[in-house]
Every structure is written in structure tokens, then in C-alpha cells.
């Protein structure tokens, strides 16, 4: 039986494809909307980025490529043997530009984010009261419309923040793409998993 790999349909897809091809591994050639595709010795699942760790934690996929930001947010119990080096970004706190951001002056700071768990932990660990407004997207507009005092979101270049009159306040976490492996697969399918890890490691150098 071939190994099953869970990949994100989102921003890590291009980097994952380039890496697999560089490693000499098969990769599906534009199969349209099919979400489960076999290619060579591997079977690929294309899922939402936040779902990649779930597929791997349950062992539905043996391995996957997920951002560290997503791993921190989901808290999935998976192995992380490789930092693949691409998809670098940061999860930051951002607030309206030109205005002082002082969460210590308020009993509760309202934070809009896709990263509900990371955002809450970031404030609570500092002894700051927080109310997290969980959003699925377009987080950048939340402060301007009065939904939240600040946002916790991912930035690559910072352009989206600037376009929405937001300024970065502090970093919550640094992220890059990681190869993740199911705990049982790591042992029960050791030879295949280690072969894949070795190929991807060489290709990601």
C-alpha cells in the first residue's frame, strides 16, 4: 500500500509541488477538482490548510505538509521531522496604524482572528484580559469597522496590513512549512516514511 500525503490547497501548494518534484517524487498533474489523487507510489489528499494536521493525526494520511502557524493553532499530536524552509511568514498582532495600542489599559482587549487559540494564549500568558472574535477570513477589516481592537493574523510582506491601515505591534509566532508524520505510521510503516523524509530532506536543503 502506498503512503498517503495530505497537502494544503492553499498557499503552501506551489511550494509543496516544487519540493516533491525536486525530490524526484511523483506529483499529480492538474487533475482538476479531484481531491484524492494517486501519483506514482503516493496518494495525495488536497484539503484545507487548517485540516492537514487533522488528517495526519488520525492517520488517514501518513504524512502532510502544514505551516507551523497551523500546527500551533490546531495543537495536533503529530511528528514534525522537517522544517521545509518555504512558506515563511509570521503570525502577528496588528492594530490601527497611528494609534497607540495599550492592552494593559483595558480590562479586556477584543481580538479578531482565524487563530483563536494562538491569539487567546498570547494575551492570557501576559496576564491580559482578552475576548477572541473568531473569523474565517478578511480579518484585516475587523478593527476599522469596530469589531475588534486588534487582529492576530499572518503576514508575509505586510502589504495587506498597510492597505488596511494596520500596523504590526508584535510577533506571536514565526512560521514555515513543516513535514508532519503520523505517530503510528512513523513506526508501523517505518521504511516508507523514512525514505520519504530522506528524499524531502535532501530536496529542501
Amino acid at each position, binding site marked *: 500500500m502506498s503512503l498517503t500525503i495530505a497537502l494544503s490547497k492553499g498557499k503552501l501548494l506551489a511550494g509543496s509541488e516544487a519540493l516533491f518534484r525536486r525530490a524526484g517524487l511523483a506529483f499529480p498533474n492538474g487533475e482538476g477538482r479531484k481531491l484524492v489523487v494517486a501519483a506514482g507510489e503516493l496518494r495525495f489528499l488536497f484539503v484545507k490548510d487548517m485540516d492537514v494536521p487533522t488528517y*495526519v*493525526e*488520525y*492517520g*488517514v494520511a501518513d504524512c502532510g505538509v502544514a505551516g507551523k502557524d497551523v500546527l500551533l493553532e490546531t495543537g495536533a*499530536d*503529530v*511528528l*514534525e*521531522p*522537517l*522544517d521545509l524552509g518555504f512558506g515563511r511568514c509570521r503570525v502577528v498582532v496588528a492594530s490601527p496604524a497611528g494609534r497607540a495600542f495599550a492592552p494593559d489599559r483595558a480590562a479586556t482587549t477584543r481580538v479578531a482572528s482565524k487563530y483563536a487559540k494562538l491569539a487567546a494564549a498570547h494575551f492570557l500568558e501576559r496576564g491580559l484580559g482578552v475576548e477572541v472574535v473568531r473569523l474565517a477570513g478578511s480579518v484585516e477589516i475587523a478593527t476599522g469597522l469596530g469589531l475588534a481592537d486588534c487582529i492576530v493574523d499572518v503576514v508575509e510582506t505586510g502589504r495587506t496590513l498597510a492597505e488596511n491601515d494596520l500596523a504590526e505591534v508584535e510577533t506571536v509566532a514565526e512560521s514555515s512549512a*513543516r513535514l508532519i*508524520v*503520523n*505517530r*503510528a*505510521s*512513523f*513506526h*508501523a*510503516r*517505518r521504511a516508507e516514511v*523514512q525514505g520519504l523524509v530522506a528524499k524531502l530532506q535532501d530536496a529542501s536543503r
Partner: protein
Amino acid sequence: MTARLTQVPPGAQCFVGEEARLRRGIEETVVSVFEGWDYEEIIPPLFDYAEVFAGEALASKTYSFVARDGSLLALRPDFTSLLAKIAAGRLRERAAPLRLYYSGEVVRYEPVRAGRQSELYQMGLEHLGGDARAADAEAVAIAAECLERLGARGFVLALGHVGVFGGLVDAAGLAPERVEALRERVESKDPAGVRQVLQGAGVSSALAEAFERLTTLGGGLEALPQAAQAFSCCAGAGAALAELRAVADALGAAGLGRHLAVDLGEVRGLDYYTGLVFRVFAPDLGFEVGSGGRYDTLVARFGRPLPAVGFMLGLDRVALLLERQGRLAAIPRPAVEAIAATQLGAGLKDAVARRVRGARVRFGSGGDR
């Protein structure tokens, strides 16, 4: 009628008919293996004082409640603490070694996720006192026999020893916060994360490299001599590896080598385990089937210093694994004999008579299920 009367609380489990029979079958097989190795059953109480379960890992997961006299009680979140208490208390006069087993439910506040439920059925044993290496090897061999007899395919017993990590930590003299961050990264086999945690910790480059090797070293038994070389800078880690090797060699000699793997990044429950640790994995199930290890300090909490080793298999997980591997054969039963109750006395007399002959009867109304 309120929703509560029909709704199931998250994490609660209920098994009906065939499902329940298959679970009983698994339990009988496992218990017969425990009995076969001369272990004695203990049926411990469902609840005890909350203090009994005060280990760090379980405290936050324990269902506790206040008794009428004001004492804090808890539903058992595991069996090991209870068996330790019994070994040190009621069985205190009994000479070591004690070989005890259990099979039953525990309850935990646990989000339902990846094979975790609030209600778990555990089958396990504890070997208290006696020759430590022999007990370690025996525990792993018994776990293997259970899976073998259940018909599980391709299972792997991944062996580790917390003293390898512990030895390196002692040699490095790390601050406790950093140890926890490091443990968590080693547990995830994340070499990049290990490097990051050790940045600015003032650890020698040899030790930093050794910590990183913990995440990559592992696999077959050939990893043990490799590890001995990689960790030669640290006597504590070397001693732990020698213990692990003695156990692995014994298991190999017993013909169990094909089921063994080495996992030196197995560093869960450091406040609890003191030596050998192992987890059971199998293809077709993404999470472990069971786990165990040596805990030499727990029983002393209850007033009897007694080193010990134990393991448990999760019945729910074993059942799921066997089902996925197509190994869960229906248990054969005699065909049912239906007896009408139109003539109540004569009918019942007939049913009782057939029961004496051992028939499976259905008295009165009701069709096939």
C-alpha cells in the same frame, strides 16, 4: 421532554449487541493472557480520594466531587494509582513481586479527538518489585502476546527509556522551563525546534547535537549501538541505553525482534516514568493501541517503596484496529429457539427445560435482530 433525556453527553459511550459481544471477546482473550502469566485480578473501587490520583498529568482530567463529609473524591481516571495504593496498603504484608491486572473503565475530562474518549476501557497489568529487567522484558512480551492472540497484524512495540533524555538534561543543567519546551520538541521529533529551544542555553555543542540526535535516532534495534556511540559523552544516558539494550536483547532472544522498534524520543510523562517506556502501534490505526513503562517512584507515595512496571491496552482502540484489519470475526452462537407464551405455564416450563440442555431460547414475543 427536555433534550437532555435523549441527548448523549460528549465522550460517553454505549455499545449494543454484537458490538458489546465483540468487546467481551477481546477482553476475555487479553485477560486469559494475563492469567497465563500468573497475574492476579484486582477489581479496584470506581472512586477514591482525589489525592490518590494527584499526578500532574491526570489532575486536570479528573472528575472529582465532594462527599457528604466534605472530603474530595474522584472517579478513577486510571488504574495504576489505585493498584499502587492497594499494593502499598491492603497488600502491604505480601512479599514482592506482586503481579496484578485489571480490566475496566476509567473516566477523564478529555476532548473527544483522535481515539480519545471521556470514557475509556483499559486492560492492563502492573508488576511491582522483583527483578526489574526481567519484569520490563516480561511486560513487553505479554503486550506482544495479547496482540498476537487477538490476531492484530503488523504491530510494533516502540521501546524507549526516559533516562536517555533525563541523562542529557542532567548533564546540560538546563532550567526547568527550558526542559519542558525541549521535551515537547523532542516528543515531536522536531530537530529544528530542538535547536531553537537550545539557542542561548549555554549547552556544549556535543550535548546540543546529542539532543538533536534524540529526534532522529530510532527505528530498528540497530539504533541502540548507534545511540550508545552518539551519547557516549553522557554517562546517565549510557546507563539508560544499557538497560534498554538488556530488555531488547531478551525480547529478541524470545523471537519478538520483528515487532520491536527503538524510539528514544519517547519522552512523555517524565514526572511519572523512570525507565523503560513503550507504545504499541499498528498499521491501519493512526494512534497508539496501548502503552506502558517503568515507574519506580509512584508506589512510594503510598508508603511502600516498590519499583514497578506496567502497561495497558485500550479496549476501544484494540476493537477499532481489529475491525479495520478485518480481524473482528463474529463470535459463533447457537441458533435461537423460539417458544410461544400462549400457554404461559407450559411454555415457560419448556423454555426452562431447554435452558437446562444449554439451548439459546427466546420466550414469548419478539423477532430476529
